C-alpha cells in the first residue's frame, strides 16, 4: 500500500513543483520506492525540475486515455534508483483527466510503490481537485505573504470537503504545512509574515521550513532536485522535511536570523 501525498497550495509560484521534486527525491534517497506525478496538464514543469525532459515519450494523459501503458510512461530517475516520474502532457488541457482514469493509475502504482507524490497545479479548479482527491496526506506549500496564506487556507477547506476521504467520512487527510522562501532577515524587518503568525492562521502542523536560497533556483535550472545539494541550506531543509514526513523528530532549522561573522562576510560565507 502506497501513501499518496499531494503537494498543493492554491497560489501559483510558491514552490509546489520544486517541493514535490525535492521531497520525492528525499523519500527515494531514504530507500522508499517513490513515484512523482505531474498533474499540471498543459503546463508541465516537473520533468524539467527532475532533469528528465529529454526522456519523455508518453505521459499521464496517454495512460489515462489508454494510448500507453503505465510502465511505458514512467521514467526512471537517473540519479536515484527508487524514483520514478510520471510526466504531464504539454499539448492537452486538464479536461483530458478523468476521475476514473486517475484512480486507475493510482491503484496500479499503489501495488508497487511506497509513496506516490502528486504535484498539483495552481488554482482550485478541476486539475487541483483531481490531484488531491485520492490523497492520504497533503503538503500545503505557503510563502510568508498574506495572499499565499489565504489561498492555502482555501485549499485546506477543499481538502476537508472535496476529497475521497472527506466524502466517504473516513479519517481526514493528514495536513502538513511547508513554508518556503522563508527569509528570517526579512521577517525581522517586517517585510514577511513570521512563522508563528502563519501557523496561527492555518492551524496545521509544520512539516518543514525552507529558507529562501540561491540553491533552489540553481537546482531548478540544472534539473537536479535541491535535495541532492546536501551542502545547501535548502537541500538540508528538504531532507529534514522528508524525515518529519516519515515521523522522525527533527529540530527546526533556518528559521532564525544568523548574524554573519567577519570571516564568512569576507569569504562569502557558506553556500546559500
Amino acid at each position: 500500500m502506497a501513501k499518496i501525498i499531494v503537494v498543493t497550495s492554491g497560489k501559483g509560484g510558491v514552490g509546489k513543483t520544486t517541493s514535490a521534486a525535492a521531497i520525492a527525491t528525499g523519500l527515494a534517497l531514504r530507500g522508499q520506492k517513490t513515484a512523482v506525478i505531474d498533474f499540471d496538464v498543459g503546463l508541465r514543469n516537473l520533468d524539467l525540475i527532475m532533469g528528465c525532459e529529454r526522456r519523455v515519450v508518453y505521459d499521464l494523459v496517454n495512460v489515462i486515455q489508454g494510448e500507453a501503458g503505465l510502465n511505458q510512461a514512467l521514467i526512471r530517475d537517473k540519479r536515484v534508483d527508487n524514483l520514478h516520474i510520471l510526466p504531464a502532457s504539454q499539448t492537452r488541457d486538464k479536461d483530458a483527466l478523468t476521475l476514473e482514469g486517475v484512480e486507475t493509475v493510482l491503484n496500479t502504482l499503489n501495488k508497487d510503490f511506497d509513496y506516490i507524490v502528486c504535484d498539483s497545479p495552481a488554482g482550485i479548479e478541476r486539475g487541483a481537485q483531481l490531484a488531491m482527491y485520492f490523497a492520504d496526506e497533503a503538503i500545503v506549500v505557503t510563502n510568508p505573504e498574506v495572499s499565499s496564506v489565504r489561498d492555502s487556507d482555501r485549499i485546506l477547506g477543499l481538502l476537508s470537503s472535496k476529497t475521497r476521504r472527506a466524502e466517504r467520512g473516513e479519517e481526514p487527510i493528514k495536513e502538513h504545512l511547508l513554508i518556503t522562501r522563508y527569509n528570517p532577515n526579512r521577517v525581522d524587518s517586517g517585510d514577511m509574515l513570521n512563522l508563528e503568525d502563519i501557523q496561527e492562521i492555518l492551524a496545521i502542523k509544520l512539516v518543514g521550513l525552507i529558507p529562501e536560497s540561491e540553491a533552489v533556483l540553481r537546482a531548478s535550472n540544472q534539473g537536479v532536485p535541491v535535495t541532492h545539494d546536501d551542502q545547501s541550506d535548502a537541500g538540508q531543509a528538504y531532507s529534514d522535511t522528508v524525515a518529519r514526513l516519515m515521523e522522525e523528530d527533527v529540530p527546526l532549522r533556518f528559521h532564525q536570523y544568523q548574524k554573519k561573522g567577519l570571516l564568512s562576510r569576507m569569504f562569502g560565507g557558506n553556500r546559500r
Partner: protein
Amino acid sequence: MSLKVDRDGMAFTFKGGMLPMTVMELTSADPERIREQLAGKLSQSPAFFQHTPVVLSVEQLDEPHLALERICAVCRAHKLLPVAVRGGTDPVKQSSWALGLGWFPPQEAGRPRTLESVPTADEPVEEAPVVDEPAPAAGAVGRIYRGTVRSGQQVTAPEGDLVVVGAVNAGAEVLAGGSVHVYGALRGRALAGIHGDAGAAIFCRELRAELLSVAGNYKRLEDIDPRLLGTGVQVRLDHDQLGIAPLD
C-alpha cells in the same frame, strides 16, 4: 403553437435582487432644516453625494401631510436621488406615487421580534445539542462548529445561535439567525440576526473581522475603531447603530 421562448426575441427578464440602499430617516418634515443639514453633510463627505439613490423613511414623523415634493427637490439639489418612500399615512403613499416614487410599508410591521422579547445571546447555547464529533451539528436550536472555518467556507445556523470553537479566517463567512459566538480569532465575516433579529449579537475572542453585521446593520473592518482590533468584544445593535464593546 410553440411554447418555446425565443431567447433572442426577449426584451427583458424579471429577477429578484437585493441591493444595498441608503435609508434617509427623517426626523423633521421641514424642508429648510433638511436643506441646512444636507449642506453640512455635503461639505463633510462630498464623495457620498454622487446621485446616491435613497429611500425616504417617514416612519418617525407624526404628520399626515408632508411637503414631499419640496423635500425631494432639496435632496436632488444635493445630488441625492429619492427613489421611494417608506411608511407614512395613506395621503403620503398617494403623493409618493404621484411623484413617481415607490412606496414601502413601515419597517416595524416586518420586524418579527423586538429586543425585549428575544432571549439574549447568553442563554440558548446551553440548550443547543452538544456534539462531540468534529462534523458540524445542525439543529433547530443552534449549531456548534468545531475547528477552523477557512477561506471560502460558509457556516450557517439558519435558526438560533452559531458557536464556532476555533477561528474564522479571512474570506470565510459565518451566519446565524440568532447570535454568533467565536471562541478564537474572527478574521472573516460574521452576520448575526440574518432574519432581522435585532436582539442578536456577535461575540469573539479576537476581533479582526472583515465585516460585522447584526440584522442587516453592518460595519466593515475600515469602520472599526483600531483600538478594538485584536481584543475580545461583543457587537450588538443599539438604536440601529452597531456598537462594539470590549468583553472585559
